[in-house]
């Protein structure tokens, strides 16, 4: 008998400035007491790590910092559809955001989109993929996280937590 499908929340990032946003969301969610039991929360330094964790995952949430000219958006929800990331909001004409996971610099490293494409090509892509693009502006070593990104992290944690708890309630 196979295990029931799971929900994976992965925080992508590094220790540098606003790029820490994904990790912080993961840490805050992991500390939530009443998270549904089928939810797994992990932190990743590079997107390719995700590939190792997709077995039996039905829904994948990825939290990652993105470069934004302003913090007006705080957080933007994207979904994977037809081989690309699109806004979860219909008729969203806002400019695309650049996901900013800090790579180690080599093409050994696949970006998030490439990792999702690889997962698709190998039949491992979860049915639902949601990317939470968290607005940030400072990504250099030794930068501290900006106040606005801190707010964005709190907002993202709240949105994901509420969504997970709503999903569980509807399954109960």
């Amino acid at each position: 008998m196979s295990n029931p499908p799971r929900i994976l929340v992965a925080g992508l990032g590094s220790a540098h400035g606003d790029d820490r946003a994904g990790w912080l969301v993961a840490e805050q969610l992991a500390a939530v007491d009443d998270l549904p039991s089928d939810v797994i929360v992990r932190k990743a330094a590079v997107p390719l790590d995700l590939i190792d964790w997709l077995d039996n995952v039905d829904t994948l949430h990825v939290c990652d910092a993105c470069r934004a000219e302003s913090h007006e958006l705080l957080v933007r929800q994207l979904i994977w559809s037809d081989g690309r990331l699109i806004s979860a909001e219909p008729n969203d004409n806002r400019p695309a955001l650049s996901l900013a996971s800090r790579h180690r610099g080599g093409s050994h490293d696949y970006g998030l989109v490439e990792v999702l494409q690889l997962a698709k090509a190998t039949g491992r892509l979860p049915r639902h993929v949601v990317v939470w693009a968290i607005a940030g502006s400072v990504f250099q070593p030794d930068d501290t996280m900006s106040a606005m990104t801190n707010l964005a992290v709190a907002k993202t944690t709240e949105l994901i937590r509420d969504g997970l708890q709503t999903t569980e309630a509807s399954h109960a």
Partner: protein
Amino acid sequence: MSETRSIKVEALTRVEGEGGLHIRLNGDVIEDVQLSIYEPPRFFEGFLRGRPLEEVPDITARICGICPVAYQMSAVHALEQALGVTITPEIRRLRRLLYCGEWIESHGLHMHLLQAPDFFNVASGIELAGRFPKEVNRGLKLKKQGNELLEALGGRAIHPINVAVGGFYRAPKKEEMQKLIPAFEWGLQAAIDATRWVAGFDFPDFQRLYEMVSLSHPDEYAMNEGRIVSTSGLSIDVADYEATFAEHHVAHSTALHSLKTVDKTSYHVGPLARVNLNRERLCETAQRVADEIRFETPCMNPFKAIIARGLEVIHAFDEALSILRDYRPFKPCRIDYEYRHGEGCAATEAPRGLIYHRYKVDDAGKVVFAKIVPPTSQNQRQIELDLIDWLPRVLGGDDQQTADDCERLIRSYDPCISCSTHFLKLTIDRGRSEEIESGEIRGEA
């Protein structure tokens, strides 16, 4: 009149780090080939100076996210020699187990996502996965097994934190090791299947006359210790490494080039060298597969390094299984030592080849000197010479095709440019030009 043309690959793809390739031709005459490493110097050897020696394994691990264990193993063995520490057989076995994990994850990734696409004329592992989803999935799972072993034993998959001078900070629990066994039993068979798959690729008929260099140990497939041997009969103690091989600066590279001191010639390190020099010490399963696929040694075709990697993954799974099955927690997991003034060196086998470290420490336990020679800097000149020989075969097409064909050859070495960029030659202009020799100031890694 001959036409001079240049072919430039501004950024090599599917290699670790940042480098390019410049080829200058005069008609069909190759005037120059430069593997141009422009990634900035990393200064790790400089960072280590003045640091407590206990920090060295964790700092050097940061040189590479793909092969941190190679840096940790080389560092702890060199430092233990400096301190006069002798580790126990249990620690020694656990270190080999950790190295098995790194070989599995690094080779698994390179075989399936980085080099295999070159044999099917596709641009990436993603495209390859579209054609060979089962095989690429298998490669990804092999890599995952390696990562899980590193995580269980090293504390985390990238930049492990459990390696200490004298042993390990913590010996894993028996159940932590045993739960890996079913996946590793699958991994051994998957590695055999993967090796059979890559052995069936259509390899260019390209033979070189290399001097191949690796560690060799009389009782085991060399990972952490042994003598340095070569296909031309060299056999030296690791302590003689710097008398036998020396790094040189070339203007087009932030990574030093290593050459033999006696005749300034290049040499080749890596899995192909290891298998050529140690085939009879591969595990029985790997030897049987090598025979079955008719892998003839010595093999001097660099493209066939992918087969050597496969054989080493088989060996790594086989040996890891043996250690996992027999594992019992042990004490002490770390040997005590007292600080003393001393010097030590060590060489181990990183996935990409021989890696050499030397340290001097003072009686307060601080590092006063560090020297690190990674495998890619040792292979750089050899890669350039290979390209000079390879180019006449691939010049017939357009420049883009020629560039692509050259990249294929470079990738067969699995170069880790980030590891190798450690050159710093400091020039101080005080009215007179003054160069400080490497070894005096080496902000390098």
